[in-house]
């Protein structure tokens, strides 16, 4: 017995050391993320607040004019805020119905073979870099929009909305599809056993049962749409006007990107303030996402 026990003791000791080391490694790696988030937040708050102080929070948020250079500058970002909100809402209005229908098709209707093909397409769509979306939008969509509506330029809010609708599809599809696939088969069987058709079962049982997951997909889409820079920059025209569907507009993200390369001094500070506002928007969306996900797990 003694040798065996001694062996066991040594074994346990090495095991413990390995355990402890791994825990330390995981902890350290976890800290990297936390430090990154804390640094970014601190940076934005410290650098974003001075300009807002000088302009005044209300004047900054509700001002309708943006003239960052020139003799008589104005720093109102309401056009950017509204443009971001409008383009996001537009993308959601178009992208969510298409995405949800695709998810339903993949999870409940298509045969496994076809579903695998469509799924590959969805994954490819998710992997396309946004600059490519922007490029295709610029070459194909912008001229098309210009001709269709007989406009001076096709680089307008509407074009950005259309590009964003496609960009948010993969996220919405994959999250909703997972939620729909996770709906217990028993619910659907109960519905069929009551004489419901497949369509009735999908819309009255499966979709309601997956609603938290679908909501999470929508919020994910909102996050992606509001945070997108490159593609929007390439198709929206970037004029700091109050937004109109058929005119060029400038969003929060592109407002920063447009001027960041050359701005100095106070102008640069105002860009950081815009960054802070955008950061607050994204934080809010993440809170909603967490809430939706938590509710999803409870149900």
């Amino acid at each position, binding site marked *: 017995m003694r040798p065996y026990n001694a062996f066991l003791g040594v074994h346990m000791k090495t095991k413990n050391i390995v355990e402890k080391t791994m825990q330390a490694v995981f902890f350290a790696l976890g800290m990297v993320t936390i430090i990154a988030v804390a640094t970014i937040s601190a940076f934005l708050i410290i650098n974003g607040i001075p300009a807002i102080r000088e302009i005044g929070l209300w004047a900054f948020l509700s001002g309708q004019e943006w003239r960052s250079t020139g003799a008589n500058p104005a720093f109102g970002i309401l056009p950017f805020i509204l443009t971001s909100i409008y383009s996001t809402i537009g993308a959601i209005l178009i992208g969510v119905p298409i995405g949800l229908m695709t998810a339903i098709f993949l999870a409940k209707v298509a045969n496994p073979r076809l579903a695998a093909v469509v799924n590959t397409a969805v994954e490819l769509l998710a992997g396309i870099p946004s600059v490519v979306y922007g490029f295709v939008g610029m070459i194909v969509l912008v001229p098309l929009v210009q001709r269709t509506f007989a406009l001076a330029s096709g680089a307008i809010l509407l074009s950005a909305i259309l590009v964003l609708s496609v960009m948010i599809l993969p996220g919405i599809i994959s999250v909703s599809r997972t939620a729909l696939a996770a709906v217990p088969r028993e*619910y659907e*069987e*109960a519905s069929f*056993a*009551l*004489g*419901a058709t497949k369509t009735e079962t999908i819309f*009255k049982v499966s979709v*309601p049962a997956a609603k938290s997951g679908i909501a999470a997909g929508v919020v994910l889409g909102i996050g992606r749409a509001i945070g997108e820079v490159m593609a929007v920059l390439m198709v929206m025209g970037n004029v700091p006007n109050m937004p109109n569907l058929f005119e060029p507009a400038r969003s929060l993200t592109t407002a920063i990107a447009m001027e960041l390369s050359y701005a100095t001094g106070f102008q640069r500070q105002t860009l950081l303030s815009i960054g802070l506002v955008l950061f607050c928007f994204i934080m809010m969306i993440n809170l909603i996402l967490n809430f939706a996900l938590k509710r999803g797990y409870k149900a």
Partner: protein
Amino acid sequence: MIEMNIICAKKLCLYYRDFQALKDIDLDVPAREITALIGPSGCGKSTFLRTLNRMNDLIQGVKITGEVTYHGENIYAGQVDVTALRKSIGMVFQKPNPFPMSIYDNVAYGPKLHDNLSKAELNDLVERSLRGAALWDEVKDRLKKSALSLSGGQQQRLCIARALSVSPDVLLMDEPTSALDPASTMKIEELMGHLKQDYTVVIVTHNMQQAARISDRTAFFLTGDLVESGKTDEIFSMPKDKRTEDYITGRFG
């Protein structure tokens, strides 16, 4: 007594792809009686039950030969309205599976699919169905609460109420009490005694005492064959087949 047998299976075979799960089943189900299906696990009881309201249609690769008649008409013939069939032949599953909705909405779900009822008619129907399942008194004050907040036994009675809500003719029950405690089981058995006055019931059970207690007729399945069927007291007191005797006396199973 014009129509004694409401459902008749004739030379019914069912295949899951290459695997034959039912072999030439001939079984008559008399109206307004309780028919119990017994047999060891995997012998095809659930499969047979699900052929009666065509729930096996939902499984890929299922092939069926022979016929099942309901009121004399083959339900596997070309022009059968499957949704109407399932409305007339309701089903209660082994695991209580109320929808993740309110108690009220669970019961109102079926009627809303098929009829355009007024609010008052619907309320009335929900109450009648819940009373029919002996659940009304326990839930009448919390109809808007989630059905998932009920106990397992209450959930199963809710599922029975839900099945009753579309006024079926026949109720198929697949081990409806196997997930329940003895008290809830008693309640449901008692309930079935009442149900057979208005409905024809086919029930799968692993519990011999339950089959003996509640059923009028019993059918014994073994590896896809129907070994023996007949009046419950006869099957239990003097089975004709040796295998039936072995099974009900617990010598195998």
